């Protein structure tokens, strides 16, 4: 039992280091540590507008989302790995060849994810934060300040939030394996309900997250039990009702490419856009990915921000949301490039930049989804800030994707996890985001300054095309 766990830990490390290089990947937690440390140094400024409880709230929800994302990658990353390594033979899929039950393998997989990503994300984050608190808060005049962030407790409760996110996603994936339609229908029903309720949420509802509640009131051990319940019950149910769907089943589809590419018109990259659309539709999760990995987190972010807007009136929920939406939209570029290798095109009359341009066309098509979402939301909630919100979304989404293209080319899912590249990425993005938040507080119309990002992005794109066309054999 422990041997499987050990092998899975080794496998996870080797898989990542083979993708990102040993030093590049080893730098990733170091970067998280440094990044958290430096961002936390401005805690005194944050504390002028946000309470300690508000900061704790943001951190706990962030780790809830990270847990969910780790769970989603663990379960859906197989196709990506197969593309990268050929028929990837991960231990998690080896119950057919080893005399071990699928349940034992899944249990090990779950524990491995918790331990591995605790070391990778949670620990460096808390360490960076703790160090910054040690430096910064004693300098403040507030005598009780240093005591208000309890580091050992924070480590525990952030881990709990992370594990809740992970086990809920595992549970949802088990339900999905039994009936994908049930999960999609449930999620589709949940959206309007969440959107409808979002205006009525107040801070209290958000603070009900048990890890966070326990952090804020450690005497309430009941919250610890609720956290344990939310981690153990979905995990246990996932184990009991586990259903393994082997990938070797041959899938047949009638030709929908030709019709689709004709419908996309006769412009240069129509065939690629049609192909990207089929990639999304036919890969694991299908078009449900857009709901599961995009619209659901986006809706949760909106719920969170609209509640935060009630707590901190200086923050405009819709403007902040459009900013976050722009950031999250850029992740769609990862989806589009996830299943492609340039090796598939290198022998055809195409340049790397041709494939990147086609991906950007598909990206523009996909951006219609968040654009419509934002438009509808803005009309319903804050029509007076709709125009600057749309502008923020479009310019941030465009800028973010060009930075991604410049730094990672056709392989964002691989190159971005190189510590150095990620540091450059963060340095190009974070100041722009902070500036946007500050400007949105001053006046929504200052955000027209984001128009200045467009020529920067266009310049960066031109540079990216030259850069990636010049890189030899850009394949893995």
């Amino acid at each position, binding site marked *: 039992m422990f041997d499987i766990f050990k092998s899975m830990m080794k496998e996870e490390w080797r898989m990542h280091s083979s993708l990102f290089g040993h030093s590049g990947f080893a730098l990733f937690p170091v970067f998280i540590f440094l990044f958290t440390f430096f961002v936390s140094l401005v805690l005194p400024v944050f504390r002028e507008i946000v309470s300690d409880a508000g900061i704790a709230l943001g951190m706990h929800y962030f780790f809830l989302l990270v847990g969910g994302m780790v769970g989603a990658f663990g379960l859906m990353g197989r*196709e990506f790995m*197969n*593309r990268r390594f050929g028929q990837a033979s991960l231990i998690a899929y080896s119950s057919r060849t080893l005399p071990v039950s699928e349940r034992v393998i899944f249990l090990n997989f779950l524990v491995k994810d918790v331990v591995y990503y605790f070391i990778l994300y949670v620990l460096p984050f808390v360490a960076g934060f703790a160090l910054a608190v040690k430096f910064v808060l004693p300098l403040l005049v507030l005598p009780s300040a240093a005591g208000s962030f309890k580091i050992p407790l924070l480590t525990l409760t952030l881990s709990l939030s992370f594990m809740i996110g992970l086990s809920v996603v595992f549970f949802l994936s088990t339900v999905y394996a039994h009936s994908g339609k049930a999960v999609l229908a449930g999620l589709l029903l949940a959206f309007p309900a969440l959107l409808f309720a979002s205006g009525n949420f107040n801070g209290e509802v958000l603070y009900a997250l048990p890890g966070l509640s326990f952090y804020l009131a450690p005497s309430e051990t009941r919250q610890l039990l609720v956290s344990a319940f939310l981690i153990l019950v979905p995990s246990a149910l996932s184990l009991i009702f586990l259903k393994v769907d082997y990938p*070797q*089943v*041959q*899938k*047949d*589809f*009638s*030709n*929908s*490419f*030709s019709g689709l*590419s004709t419908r996309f018109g006769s412009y240069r990259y*129509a*065939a690629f856009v049609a*192909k990207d659309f*089929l*990639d999304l*539709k*036919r*890969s694991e999760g299908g078009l449900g990915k857009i709901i599961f990995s995009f619209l659901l987190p986006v809706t949760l972010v909106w719920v969170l921000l609209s509640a935060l807007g009630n707590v901190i009136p200086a923050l405009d929920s819709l403007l902040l949301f459009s900013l976050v939406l722009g950031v999250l939209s850029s992740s769609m570029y990862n989806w589009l490039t996830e*299943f*492609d*290798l340039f*090796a*598939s095109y*290198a*022998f*055809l*009359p*195409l*340049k790397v930049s041709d494939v990147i341009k086609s991906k950007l066309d598909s990206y523009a098509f996909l951006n219609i989804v968040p654009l419509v979402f934002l438009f509808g939301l803005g009309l319903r909630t804050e029509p007076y800030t709709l125009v600057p919100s749309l502008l923020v979304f479009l310019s941030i989404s465009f800028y973010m994707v060009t930075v991604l293209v410049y730094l990672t080319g056709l392989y964002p899912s691989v190159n971005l996890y190189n510590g150095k590249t990620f540091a450059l990425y963060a340095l190009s993005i974070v100041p722009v985001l902070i500036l946007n938040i500050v400007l949105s507080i001053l006046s929504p119309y200052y955000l027209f300054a984001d128009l200045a990002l467009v020529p920067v992005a266009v310049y960066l794109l031109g540079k990216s095309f030259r850069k990636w066309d010049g890189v*030899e*054999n850009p394949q893995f």
Partner: protein
Amino acid sequence: MIEVKGLSKSYGKINAVDSVDLSVKKGELFGLLGPNGSGKTTMIKMLTGQIKPDSGSLRVHGVDVLEAPLRVRELVGVIPEQETPPSFLTAEEYLHFVAKIRKLEGYEKACEQWFEFFDFGDQKNVLCKDLSRGTRQKLMFAQAFLHEPKLAIIDEPLINLDPVMQRKVKDFLRGYVKNGGTIFISTHILEIAKEICSSIGIIYKGKLVHSGRMDGPELEDRNLEEFFLELVGQGCECREQREQLEMQAREKQLSKMSA
């Protein structure tokens, strides 16, 4: 059809291709032979403009590869070493996709003919990722010849194919050359070269150690395998090793007898 002069390419300290001069004429079926890692795939990647040489010049189909690599790939049909069609297109969709990239008209009939030729019409609606490696190789063959190029460059043409398909492919390549086409293949399987090539080049550690016709004087009274092994140094080493082993065995026998 192919003119290469002083071509070199190195990766760090390794000279993958070292000062190679090579010429392939129209109507030839040329085989580039060499052991694994001798520089064959690097050579093909340079010929098709996928990578740039450190020095030297290349003209393919009358086009300077360094100046217009895309034009070369427009004119030439290429089958790469590893078959990597996009995962989520079916076999038929992939051929249509390639046809659209190559801006071909009325390609549907040609696609059907290829499915028939390779006898995998029943697989045309299967996603590429679910196809067997042999079927994927057939698909790569079909995409390379879809635009009826005058020159095809093929890395390991018979890999993953069963004997029936191998025979079909060999016959097809011979017929293709007979009808005025030119083929450049790279392989480490000497039997293929022996059977179908009109001329060969032997590359070893990046250097072209032989180039000539299959019916040339070097191979007049010699076996291709022996000739190849000798050129790549293994012939001598093998003989030496065999003689050494025989000597050791004789010594052992003698010592036993004397005991």
